[in-house]
């Protein structure tokens, strides 16, 4: 049976879907106020265009597709506003991971986790969520578009008006920091 949008009682949408949408938004924006705003905008936009809901997907899928667009809008806007901060970050001071010869300062620790097992590791996911929140904003925004929204390099460069080589450097930094943070907080907590 196809789902239909209940015209009479949009309140029930909120009871039913607000947690899912908020959780989704929070994982991308790491910020309560922005997450609340996009969720509200999503419900309003959905309400205004409810006649266009075809019932070919679930209501939740439809709401999330609206939400995703709004999240990319927010990230684009934040990124424009933070241009100066971003250019500063390009020159990283001392290298915390490698010595002057380009050798590892600290050997990467084996996480004892294999691809395909991550879903079962709830603690790993919790630490990951915390580590994403600790990334500098400019790196986090790029990383979210690339790895959570799964946009490709070209799409991100278009959205944020940056060059591909700049994007790759920043993604590299984000990954290095995240693996450092995960090693510290997950492995050592065990």
């Amino acid at each position: 049976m196809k789902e239909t949008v209940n015209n009479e009682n949009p309140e029930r949408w909120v009871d039913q879907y607000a947690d899912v949408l908020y959780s989704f938004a929070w994982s991308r924006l790491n910020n309560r106020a922005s997450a609340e705003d996009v969720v509200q905008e999503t419900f309003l936009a959905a309400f205004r265009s409810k006649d266009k809901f075809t019932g070919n997907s679930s209501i939740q899928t439809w709401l999330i597709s609206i939400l995703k667009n709004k999240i990319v809008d927010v990230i684009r806007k934040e990124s424009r506003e933070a241009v100066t901060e971003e250019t500063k970050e390009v020159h990283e001071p001392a290298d915390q991971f490698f010595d002057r010869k380009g050798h590892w300062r600290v050997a990467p620790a084996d996480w004892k986790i294999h691809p395909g097992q991550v879903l079962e590791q709830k603690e790993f996911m919790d630490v990951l969520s915390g580590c994403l929140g600790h990334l500098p904003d400019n790196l986090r925004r790029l990383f979210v578009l690339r790895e959570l929204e799964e946009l490709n390099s070209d799409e991100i460069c278009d959205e944020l008006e940056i060059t591909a080589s700049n994007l790759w450097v920043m993604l590299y930094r984000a990954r290095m920091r995240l693996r450092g943070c995960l090693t510290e907080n997950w492995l050592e907590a065990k």
Partner: protein
Amino acid sequence: MLNCKDISKLISESLEKDLPLRTRMAVKFHLMMCSMCRIYYKQTHVLREAVREYGRKHEAPIKKIPADAAEKIKQALADEQKSNH
């Protein structure tokens, strides 16, 4: 000769684009010799997979919307509904 720092950058880049054949061979060769970079390589792939799982995992919400925010949204929707009538 590429050092570990170069290799770590290339491994990250290889998630973004196809590396030239020569570079791919150099990375492969380095990985054969260097157990630290092998661990880094594995971590990079686990990280991508974990983050993508995390991003898709909204069926079971990890956070609940604060009650006051939910109320605000209901109010906004009610106002919207009224203004349409």
